[in-house]
């Protein structure tokens, strides 16, 4: 199998023809995820507990201001705007507003809740949608004639999809790098101690316990199993860099990443499978979505 990456790399793919349906479906799913995330009771809880502490690019006084005055309002605004996004009503105008309200709301969220960080999967794709024609399909804008009248360029529906697929690659490749950098520490990470500690500590809070009611084996020993799982997950994460060079392996990457998340889901780290699935829409070939407007 020979792959010519000069024609399959992400920059080349961004110039190819895409699918308006694919972009619209991604817009709708992202909107649903934003609605779900910003409706979380976590925001109510964070208003009364101390939470964790983590730096943001916003100054402390600004975060304090958002926390003390604006969170309930920002939450309502973000929820309302996400509904507009899902239905594709006034899409061009609400997207920048939604981006700002989402960024501020989750700045407060992150300043008191350091992990898991689902906003990472959302904020940049949302920014990219601001510059795209995601309302050309499956939208009220299209139905009532509010979508743009100008003809879309050849790659109008493809480049946002490819940029988001690059974001998917960044998330997982950077996660892999974080585990092995600096190299002096990375070698220790591969012994699986981190994975073993998490699974050992969280067993009684995991789906595996809720379903099977007992551990499968002695999680306090058998380190080789955890070392194998850690090396496997690292390989999967680093493999995602291939997305930048070719889309030939996208199905394999989706399968491997989802398998990894499903395993984590079972062992007590459930939060990323849903968001990863939504971004995976952008890894699928546009031809799968092309019944109309391509």
């Amino acid at each position, binding site marked *: 199998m020979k792959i010519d990456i000069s024609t399959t790399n992400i*920059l080349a793919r*961004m*110039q190819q023809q895409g699918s308006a349906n694919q972009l619209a479906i991604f817009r709708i799913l992202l909107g649903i995820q934003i609605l*779900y*995330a910003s*409706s*979380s*009771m*976590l925001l109510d*809880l964070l208003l*009364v507990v101390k*939470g*964790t502490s983590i*730096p943001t*690019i916003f100054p402390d006084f600004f975060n304090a201001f958002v926390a003390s005055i604006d969170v309930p309002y920002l939450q309502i605004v973000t929820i309302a705007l996400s509904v507009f996004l899902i239905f594709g009503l006034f899409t061009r105008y609400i997207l920048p507003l939604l981006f700002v309200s989402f960024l501020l709301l989750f*700045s407060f969220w992150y*300043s008191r*809740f350091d*992990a898991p960080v689902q906003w*990472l999967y959302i904020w*940049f794709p949302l*920014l*990219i949608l*601001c*510059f795209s024609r995601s309302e050309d399909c499956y939208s009220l804008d299209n139905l009532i004639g509010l979508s743009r009248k100008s003809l879309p*360029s*050849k*790659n109008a529906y493809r*480049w*946002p999809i490819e*940029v988001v697929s690059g974001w998917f690659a960044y998330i997982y490749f*950077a*996660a892999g*790098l*974080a585990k092995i*950098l600096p*190299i*002096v*520490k990375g070698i*220790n990470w591969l012994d699986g*101690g*981190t*994975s*073993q500690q998490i699974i*050992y500590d*969280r*067993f*009684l*809070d995991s*789906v595996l*316990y*809720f379903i099977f*009611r*007992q*551990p499968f084996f*002695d*999680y*306090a020993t058998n380190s080789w199993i955890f070392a194998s799982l850690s090396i496997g997950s690292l390989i999967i994460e680093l493999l995602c860099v291939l997305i930048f060079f070719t889309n030939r392996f996208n199905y394999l990457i989706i399968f491997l990443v989802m398998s990894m998340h499903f395993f984590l889901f079972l062992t007590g780290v*459930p*939060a990323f499978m849903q968001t990863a699935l939504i971004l995976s829409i952008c890894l699928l070939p546009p031809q799968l979505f092309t019944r109309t407007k391509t």
Partner: protein
Amino acid sequence: MKDFIEKYNIWISLALFYLTVADVIQSWFYLGENVGNSFKIKLFFFLHIAILTGCLIFFISNKNKIISLINKLKQLPIPNGAKWAIAIVLIGNLISIAVGRPSYPFYDVGMFRWTTHFKDAPKVVYKPKYFYWKDGESKILDLRKEGYYLLHEHFGLRYTHEFTFAATYHNKGQKENFDFIMQKMKERGIDTLWVGVHAVNYETKEVWFNTDLCDAIRINQTEKIHYGPIYIPNYQMERCNEN
């Protein structure tokens, strides 16, 4: 392979340069006061500096290729606003990854980056949890279970995994966290929560839940517990002291 390297030598050297810079910066933070203490560490940094110097010399001698690469990126047929957005986010994230620290919204994706030397761990793990009595039976309030659509028993969709994580781990030692959960349970007809101890013995695969109020107080204080002790309400302390 040779053709590939020749064709993409600029990209390869840029990646090598960046990863080497990231490794130097993060090693500096990681080693802390030990930097420069041993020959191995000195050799490590010398090698990195040699790679960086080599890359810089390559960049200078191929500056035309770099300029043409930048021009190629500038000419991408996408909106200018998007180009600026991508450039700013790319730079922010590259800095974040290089220093190995997040600064919202830029992120190094280092959620599980720490290393743990898992050795000689006890076979029994204790986990204090809230529970209540219903029809003479103890019922564990498994907060983490409440985040799963198909498994939850008390709460609804809005009680996401993030909520259950914060309530189960980050904030479990705080009275405010307990009050919040208690309030939600009262709305569902449960007016008293106690703390019991859920435990697993990994050697025997036995799992049990101990509802003894005084044992829970003792274990909560004396055993090593993931994310620290849970908040125990005063009425449980008083009930234990009465006995």
